[in-house]
């Protein structure tokens, strides 16, 4: 009988925090590996567009320090995916520098594997011309214009590049963009554990303790064997129940039964979730289906302009009551003024007014008729350059402060919360791909570099 594979997942993402006591509990179970995710697209296109991290590097370094120490004490590998939030090459390099810094501080000698996942635009264009790129539903249109504005393309690694680093004996594995599940599924699959169970365990554990009664406690432990897997939360005040575990399969998944992965898909339609005791759940019956072709998912962000925002607060009851009329007038006057006085302004700019306290979030879907005593008016200006966005915002500024509802009334003054009322937000990005790319071999385009420090 093959030995089971025990995986310790400290939290859903590095930088989010976890209970140190729970980590210690997890280490007592003698895990074979510590796996943690480093990011996702969850926070929007900016991070991939700029190639920067969402989380404080100082916080990440403090957590990584704890995990490096745990790895060393227990002589097990440590793997992180989607380095630096978005998984660009710079994110891998950032984690590499951090790992070297901590290793030196702790006096550890460490074999560090780096797996890069970024794709050059030229490589993407070749794949496109070879018909190896397919859209998922729904996919943004790929045009010459959108291609020229893409700043970063990453492909999500499957388990194979990670297994290659494991087989090379790496102590710390830093992966650019990877599917959240591949990080966790790589080792049990390498150990010939049940394929469906390996992927399913990975999906359940990928957000840490989200699959328990206490999501913020972080640390989760999964053990995968030849027939299924067992999951347990490591914090004393967190329980895994059949309901919390099964419900996590639904989380952030458009389809509750099927999970597409590089090289196939997981089907959990027949999975059973059984309580072993008050803390642990046993899961069996999930299936893995290999596909004929090996594909990886692509993500890209394109530069879509520059933004400047303004915010004011309207408190005068008559203006609150007639806010739609006021915004309509404000919009009309500002657009006329822009046409008259800003002849260089291109027609591609947009001005979006959102009334906070009325329908800023749901827009046309909002059903509530009630209004707060005060309303926030958020103005988002998007233009081709920061200068143009700033100019438009500065033109709007005095009207946002002083525009009367009708001509025969005193000039109002709305409440600016700070000076200046306009804030330059810098570059604005949008997601540009929801596509998959066919690879001849699973490790194609995922270069592996190993260093000993």
């Amino acid at each position, binding site marked *: 009988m093959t030995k089971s594979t025990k995986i310790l997942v400290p939290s859903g993402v590095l930088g989010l925090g976890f209970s140190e006591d729970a980590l210690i509990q997890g280490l007592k179970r003698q895990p074979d590996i510590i796996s943690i995710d480093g990011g996702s697209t969850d926070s929007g296109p900016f991070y991939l567009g700029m190639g920067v991290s969402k989380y404080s590097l100082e916080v990440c370094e403090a957590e990584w320090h704890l995990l490096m120490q745990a790895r060393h004490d227990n002589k097990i590998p440590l793997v992180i995916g989607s380095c630096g939030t978005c998984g660009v090459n710079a994110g891998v390099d950032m984690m590499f520098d951090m790992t070297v810094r901590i290793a030196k501080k702790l006096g550890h000698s460490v074999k560090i594997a780096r797996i890069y996942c970024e794709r050059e635009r030229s490589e993407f264009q070749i794949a496109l011309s070879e018909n190896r790129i397919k859209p*998922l539903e729904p*996919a943004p249109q790929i045009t010459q214009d959108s291609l020229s504005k893409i700043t970063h393309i990453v492909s999500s690694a499957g388990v194979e590049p990670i297994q290659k680093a494991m087989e090379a004996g790496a102590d710390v594995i830093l992966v650019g963009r990877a599917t959240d599940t591949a990080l966790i599924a790589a080792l049990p699959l390498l150990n010939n554990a049940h394929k469906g169970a390996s992927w399913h365990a990975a999906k359940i554990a990928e957000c840490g303790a989200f699959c328990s009664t206490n999501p913020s406690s972080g640390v989760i432990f999964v053990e995968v064997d030849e027939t299924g897997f067992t999951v347990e939360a490591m914090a004393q005040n967190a329980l895994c129940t059949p309901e919390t575990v099964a*419900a996590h399969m639904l989380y952030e998944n*458009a389809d509750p039964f099927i999970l597409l992965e590089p090289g196939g898909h997981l089907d959990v339609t027949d999975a059973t979730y059984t309580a072993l005791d008050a803390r642990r759940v046993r899961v069996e019956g999930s299936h893995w289906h290999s596909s004929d072709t090996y594909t990886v998912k692509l993500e890209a962000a394109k530069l879509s302009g520059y933004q400047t925002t303004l915010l004011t607060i309207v408190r005068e009851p008559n203006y609150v009551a007639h806010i739609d009329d006021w915004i309509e007038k404000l919009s009309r006057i500002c657009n006329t003024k822009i046409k008259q006085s800003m002849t260089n302004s291109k027609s591609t700019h947009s001005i979006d007014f959102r009334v906070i306290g009325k329908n800023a979030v*749901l827009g046309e879907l909002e*059903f509530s008729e009630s209004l707060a005593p005060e309303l926030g008016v958020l103005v988002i200006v998007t233009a081709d350059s920061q200068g143009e966005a700033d100019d438009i915002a500065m033109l709007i500024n005095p009207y946002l402060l002083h525009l009367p509802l009708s001509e025969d009334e005193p000039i109002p003054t709305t409440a600016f919360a700070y000076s200046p009322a306009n804030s330059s937000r810098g570059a604005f990005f*949008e*997601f540009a791909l929801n596509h998959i790319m066919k690879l001849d071999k699973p490790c194609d385009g995922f270069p592996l570099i190993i260093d000993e420090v």
Partner: protein
Amino acid sequence: MASLSELTHKIRSKNAGPFWVTIDLFCEDDAHYKRVRDGLTLPVIARCLLIPENLVKRFEIDNLKVIKVSFQRKHFQGSRLDRDMHGAQFAFLLEQLQID
């Protein structure tokens, strides 16, 4: 008629990647689940979200007493006209929806 907030014990909405939003409706018992399952039909969902039915997927997960609704975002996550980066506020739209 009753609102979905009265018929469920939790409604959760979240982005499922940048292009989809998914809403999970958890029911307390079989009677409530059956009522939500029968009342929250595809046309009812499409009308509530103001999107065509073919952009919506609806799943019945009997063993969890969950109805799952996934739909393609009208405005992709973080695009100019997107109003909710993580798509979590759609839960409150469904909470007030009245069904038979």
